């Protein structure tokens, strides 16, 4: 297994996440897609750490931090979704058009 394999998987995963984030109407779906993109980034970090600098662990630590931030993001994001659903009675992002000029 070369580094290329892992990078390819992480790249595809990222693109899938990006596609989901751009196309899902459901706000929860968007959040889940973003989680996928986080995972792609994490996989990338771990792979580089393993193949290029195996004697160090910085990639792992940063991945850990990203997991923490992602968890926080998920918590806040989902709380927002719940609030929005409560107020607007919808979770479809195209209905959130208060910014419309």
């Amino acid at each position, binding site marked *: 297994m070369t580094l290329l394999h892992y990078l390819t998987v992480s790249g595809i995963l990222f693109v899938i996440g990006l596609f989901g984030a*751009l196309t899902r109407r459901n706000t929860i779906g968007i959040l889940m897609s973003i989680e996928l993109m986080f995972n792609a980034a994490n996989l990338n970090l771990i792979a580089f750490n393993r193949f290029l600098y195996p004697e160090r662990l910085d990639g792992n630590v940063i991945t850990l931090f990203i997991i923490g931030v992602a968890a926080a993001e998920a918590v806040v994001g989902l709380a927002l979704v719940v609030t929005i659903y409560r107020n607007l009675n919808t979770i479809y*992002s195209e209905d*959130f*058009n*208060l*910014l419309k000029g």
Partner: protein
Amino acid sequence: MLEHAYLIPIIPFVTSLVILLGGKEGKDSKMPYLGIAAMGWCFLQSSVLFFRALSGRMPLEAGKEFFLHQRFPWLEWGENLRINVGVLVDGPAVTLLFVVTLVSLLVQIYSLGYMHDDKRKKRYYAYLSFFTASMLGLVIASSIFILFACWELVGVSSYLLIGFWFEKPGPAYASKKAFITTKLADCGFYVGLLILFCYAGTFDLVSLKSYIAQGLLPVEVAKAVGIGFLIGAIGKSAQIPLFIWLPDAMEGPTPVSALIHAATMVVAGIYLVARTYFIFTAAPTTMGAVAWVGLFTAFFAATMAITAYDIKKVLAYSTVSQLGYMMLGLGVYGYTAALFHLTTHAFFKALLFLGAGSVIHAVHTNDMREMGGLYKRMPTTAATVGIATLTIAGLPLLSGWWSKEAILHDVYAVSPGMWVVAVFTAGLTAFYMSRMYVLTFLGAPRNEEKHSHAHESPLTMKIPLWTLAVLSLFAGGILHYNGLFEHLVHFKLPEGSHGSHHAPAYLLPGAAIFVFAVGVGLAYKLYSGSLETAQQLRGKLSIAAETLEQRYYFDDFFLGLVKLSDKLATACYWIDSRIIDAIFIDGWALVLRALAAVNDFIDSFIVDGAVDGVGTITQDAGWGLRKLVRGQVQEYLLYVSLAVAVFATFMLSR
């Protein structure tokens, strides 16, 4: 004394301010005594200067023709415009100082009696002091600029004094007329002054004299300056054609007439010509103009005096005529004679005016037809006025005789033709003065009521009368004796200017005595009885008399001039409104409106169209772009991702 000559104008000026601002107004005001005291000091100083100069005990400045020339810088604007204030004391100035202060002092004393009941005594004396200060400043000024300033001050104060009884329409009108007429003439003076300054670059009389003596001033310029100054003098000294203000100015208080219209203000014009004589002699044409103006004035004013019945008007015409004599004298290089006549005339004309004032004070009328036989009631006045009448008429050996004879002598030397007119005028003078005297004092009273109320004037009025009477009798002879006055004036005739005509020794005095006798005799014969003879004569010569009474229609001429200019202005207005406005302005406006319409079209359809087009395009583009931005966060993210993807890919792949 001499080096403090500047005090002579300054003291009355300060006094006038003190009188005007201090003390209480009213009949009992004590301010007149202050004015008299100040004028007494000035007279004292002036007479000391005068007599010392006359007796030759006051030395001339080394190599110069004047006693004192003080200058102080006053205004300095840059290199070229420097005006000095200072005094120039020479023979004529000393003489004038003496005359002006003397007459002013006597008039102020006389006014104590004459203005006894007036409510505005304080103001009257303030004006008198102010006028005298202006006149003395004019006399003593070393710079023509200061002279001009004082000249205008004299005009202002004469305006104030003539219109002293401003609540009456007559004096108010007369003061206005005097002011405007003299101002008109002052324009000439002013223009001449500016021309002169442009060439010479100085206002100082001494510098100007040496400048012209070096021949630096072109003759044509000297001519222009001389004519300008002559116009100023014509206005101030009431020469033809601008004499019209002087008869009307008789509306003022009679002592004022004595002061202003006999001794001081009206001789300012003569004095101006005398003071700037070097300019006139530099341009002989102007000398001719001066002579002719003087001759005409002397003659026509004398004829006008013949028909007048207002005692003060007679004196006014007489003054104009005598001023014409002085002008004539100046015009024929009779500088000394003119100044001599100025001096003697000041004495006897002031005396005549004060005497007339005394008469008016007694009978409360100016009309000589209401008088007659007053010598019984007013012996002092009758005697003194009689002396003055004989003096002005030219009784040999009195003051007027000497000075008039001197002028006639100079006139004959230049032109015997002029001399004939001048002698004839002297005869007319004798005639109308005698007529006035006869009508007023001799004969039978024509108005018994006024006659019975008439009384002799108080002592304050008698003293000036007697003083002036004595001077009228003897001043001429004394000054003429041994060439005293000639020596004082110190006039050197320009080369080759003296006339070539020499009269037989007996001709001049003989002719003068002859016309005097004829004039006096004729007047006595015509007017000593009843007025009927005179009235019949007037009926026969009604056209001539009418002409004379209407002052040769000079007033009508000027009024006509005014009316003509009014008509001209109306015509100009018509042309302006109907032609210029209608065609040029309104037509132009139409053109402009058409142009404006085109402009409006271009502006609104093309320029505005372009501007609005830009706006519309922007707006439409905005509306179009607005559809892209629908408030959809996800779409924003889409575009951001697209941009990031594209840019990052291309930039990082370098």
